[in-house]
C-alpha cells in the first residue's frame, strides 16, 4: 500500500507541473476581481486554453496516440488533473466530449468518424454534447422516444426532444441516442448518431434552474436530416454504445469526485472564519460527520485507480461516491447557512449557488434511487424488482402506458 508516486510518475508529475508553471499566465481567469464575465469571452478563452493543454499533452491523456492522445494510463490522467487543480487554472472546457464521448467514438466509431471528429474535439475547436436523457427517459434511459426514421435515400429523419444537455448552446456536435425501431423490445431498437448542432431543425433552449442560471439546455429536433454515415456503432446497436459512454461516465466521476469542489477543506474553511462557530460542539459534530464522509471519497478514488491499474474495470460502486459527495455537500450547505445566517442565501453568492445546485445534482448522472437499485443488484446481488417491460415491443409498451394514464 503506497500513496506516493513511483519515480516514473514523479517524473511525469514534474513535467506537467513545469509546463503549467510556465504557461499558467495564458489561462483564462474565472475567479477573483480580474475574472472574465462575458459568457462568449469565457467560452472563447476556455476553448483556446483547451487547445494549449492538448498541444502540451495535458488533454486526452488516456487517448491512444494515433488520435492525438498520450496513450497513458488513468494514473497519469489523475496526476494531470491534480496538477491542473493545484495550479489554480481551469481544466479543459469539453470534459464531457474528451472524457466520455470521444472514448465512445474510439470504441465504436468508423475510421472516417475517428479521423474527422476526434482531433477538433480534443483541441476544443469543436465542443460536443451528450444527447441521451429525455423528459420521459432518464433513469429508464432505454425508453427514449426521439425517433430516427430512414428515408428512401438512406438518410435519417430525426424528431424529438432531449433535456439536461450541458454545453449544447455552444456545441458543434452531439452524440444522440434515438429509437430506430419501435416494434422490437426497447433495448434493441436504439441507434447512436452524430448530430451537427447547426443542422436545420435543431433548436437549443436554456433551462433555468433553482439558482436562476441556465447551465443545462433542452434540445428540440424537428425533421432534422442526418447523412447515413452519422450512425455510430451500427443500427440497432445503440444500447451497447450508450453503455460504453456510461462506463466512461462512471470512471470520470470515480476519479474526479473531488474535482466538483465539494471537499472537506473548503467547507471547514467557511466555518473556521467564524471563531464562535468553530467552538460550538453542535457545529463541530455536524462538520466532523460530513467531512469524514467526504474525505473517504478521495481514498475510494484511489481504490478505483488501483483497480484500473490492475486492468480491472471499476464497477457501479463508484456511483456510491456520487451519493456520498452530493449528500455530504447538501449537509455542508445546510451547516454553513446555519452558521452564516440569511446572508448565505444571497442570490449569486457562493453558498446560495451551491445550495441551489445540489438538489438537481442528486438526480444528475443517474438518480440516487436508480444508483442504489443498480448497486444493490450488481454489487450485493439482490434480486431485481419485477419488470413489466421485458421483451415487449416498445410500441406496445407505449400503448399500454397511454391506456393506463
Amino acid at each position: 500500500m503506497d500513496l506516493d508516486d513511483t519515480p516514473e510518475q514523479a517524473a511525469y508529475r514534474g513535467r506537467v507541473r513545469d509546463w503549467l508553471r510556465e504557461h499558467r499566465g495564458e489561462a483564462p481567469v474565472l475567479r477573483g476581481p480580474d475574472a472574465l464575465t462575458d459568457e462568449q469571452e469565457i467560452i472563447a478563452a476556455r476553448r483556446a486554453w483547451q487547445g494549449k493543454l492538448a498541444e502540451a499533452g495535458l488533454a486526452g491523456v488516456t487517448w491512444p496516440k494515433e488520435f492525438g492522445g498520450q496513450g497513458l494510463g488513468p494514473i497519469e490522467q489523475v496526476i494531470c488533473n491534480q496538477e491542473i487543480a493545484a495550479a489554480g487554472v481551469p481544466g479543459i472546457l469539453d470534459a464531457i466530449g474528451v472524457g466520455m464521448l470521444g472514448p465512445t467514438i474510439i470504441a465504436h466509431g468508423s475510421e472516417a468518424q475517428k479521423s474527422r471528429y476526434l482531433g477538433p474535439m480534443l483541441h476544443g475547436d469543436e465542443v460536443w454534447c451528450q444527447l441521451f436523457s429525455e423528459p420521459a427517459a432518464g433513469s429508464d434511459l432505454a425508453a427514449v422516444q426521439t425517433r430516427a426514421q430512414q428515408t428512401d435515400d438512406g438518410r435519417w429523419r430525426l424528431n424529438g426532444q432531449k433535456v439536461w444537455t450541458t454545453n449544447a448552446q455552444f456545441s458543434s456536435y452531439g452524440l444522440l441516442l434515438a429509437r430506430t425501431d419501435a416494434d422490437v423490445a426497447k433495448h434493441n431498437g436504439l441507434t447512436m448518431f452524430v448530430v451537427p448542432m447547426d443542422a436545420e431543425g435543431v433548436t437549443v433552449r436554456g433551462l433555468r434552474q433553482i439558482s436562476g442560471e441556465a447551465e443545462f439546455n433542452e434540445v428540440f429536433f424537428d425533421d432534422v436530416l442526418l447523412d447515413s454515415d452519422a450512425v455510430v456503432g451500427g443500427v440497432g446497436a445503440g444500447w451497447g454504445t450508450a453503455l460504453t459512454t456510461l462506463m466512461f461516465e462512471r470512471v470520470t466521476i470515480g476519479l474526479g469526485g473531488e474535482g466538483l469542489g465539494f471537499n472537506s477543506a473548503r467547507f471547514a474553511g467557511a466555518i473556521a472564519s467564524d471563531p464562535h462557530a468553530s467552538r460550538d460542539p453542535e457545529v463541530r459534530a455536524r462538520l466532523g460527520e460530513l467531512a469524514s464522509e467526504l474525505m473517504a471519497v478521495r481514498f475510494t478514488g484511489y481504490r478505483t485507480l488501483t483497480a484500473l491499474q490492475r486492468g480491472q474495470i471499476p464497477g457501479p460502486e463508484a456511483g456510491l461516491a456520487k451519493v456520498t459527495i452530493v449528500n455530504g455537500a447538501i449537509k455542508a450547505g445546510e451547516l454553513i447557512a446555519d452558521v452564516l445566517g440569511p446572508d448565505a442565501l444571497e442570490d449569486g453568492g457562493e453558498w446560495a449557488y451551491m445550495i441551489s445546485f445540489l438538489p438537481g445534482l442528486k438526480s444528475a448522472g443517474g438518480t440516487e434511487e436508480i444508483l442504489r437499485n443498480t448497486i444493490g443488484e450488481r454489487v450485493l446481488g439482490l434480486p431485481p424488482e419485477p419488470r413489466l417491460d421485458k421483451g415487449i415491443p416498445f410500441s406496445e409498451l407505449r400503448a399500454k402506458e397511454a391506456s393506463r394514464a
Partner: protein
Amino acid sequence: MNLALSDEQVLLREAARGTLSRYKTLEAAREALDGKDALPDLWEAAKEAGWPGLLISESAGGAGLDVFDAMLVMSECGRVLAGVPLLGHLPATALLDEAGAATDLLAPLAAGERRAAYLPAKPPSDLDSEWTADPAHGAARAALPVAQRAGAEGVRVSGTIAFVPDAPGADLLVGAALLDGEVVAVAIEASQAGVSVEEVRRYDATRGLGHLSLKDAEAGVLASGGADALASAWHLAQALVAAESLGAVETALEVSVAYAKERHTFGRAIGSYQAVKHSLTEVLRQQENGRSLLYYAGWARRGAPAEFPLAANAARSVCGRALDFASRAMISVHGGIGATWEHDAPLYFRRAQLTRRLLGGTGSATDRVAEELLAQAA
C-alpha cells in the same frame, strides 16, 4: 499509487480468519450474556498467530508490522465478535515501543507471555484544555492519575480510570499520568498491592472491561513517552476500534443480504423491494467509506504522520456510525426474529451500542475530525 493489499497482508487476513473459525465465538457471546463462563481463551490462539507482537519492533522480538496489518487482524476479530484482548494490548505495546521501552519489558509482551492493557487518555482539544480519562462526559468524568516521584527513577501513581478495555487479567498497564503538571507515559505492573481492577460487564459480554484504581502504585516513566507519544497511542486506538467495527459491519451486511435473498413475501424475495435494497446499499456505502478511511489511516501512520490523527478519527467516526446503522438494519431486515435472543443480530447490536461509548466514544472522534480540519483551514 497502490491501495491494494500485499500478498503478505492477504495471507495475514486469511490466517486470522482461519484461526478464529476454530472457535464458536458467537454462541459463546450469547451464552456469556447469561452469565455462563462460556468465552474461549483466545489469547492462546493470538499467541500462536503472532498477534501480540504485531506492533513491537523486530529488534525487541516483535513482528514490526504496520498499523494497517494490525487493523486487518482487528477487522477479522470484529467480524465474529471475538473477544481477543488486542484493543488493550496493541496500543499499549505500540506506545511502549515508540517510547523506547527496554527489550526485556517488550520481549515477553511480543511473545504473548505477558499481556498489556492501554489506559485510555484523551488528548486536549480546543473545547477541553485537559487530558482526560474515560468517560469523557457525565459525573464519572475523570482527570488523569497523578504521579509523584519516588526514588531515582520510579514514581508512584494514584487515581482511577473507568472502563479500561482488556484490563482484567492484564499483566502490565500502560498509559498516561500527570507528573509535576506534565503528562508522561507510565508502565504499571498490575500484580502489585496498589493496583486493583474491578471486572465490569456492560451489554456486550465479549468485551473485557475493568475499572482501575491506583493507590501509590509503583510505576516506571517511559523516557520518550511524552504528550506526542500518548496522543499517538490514543489515535492508534481510534483506528483499531474503527477496524474492529468495520469487520462487524461486514458480517452484518453479509448476513442481511443473504436473508434478503431467501426470505419471500408477496411472492418475491424481500431484497427485491427498494425499501430493503436501499437500506442495505446504505450499509454498503458507509462500509466502503469506512474502509477507504482505514486505508488512509493505515498509510498515514508512517507515510504522513501529521495526518494520522485526522485519518484515524475520521475512520472511527465513519466506521462507528456504519456499525450503528448496520446493526439496526440487520435487525430490521430480519423482521421480528432479528430482535430475538436466538438470533445473532442482537449480538452485533450490543457490540455497536457499547463500542460507540468506549475510548472517548464515536462523538469525540468526530469532534477531533472537525478540530483538525478547522486548524488546517485557519
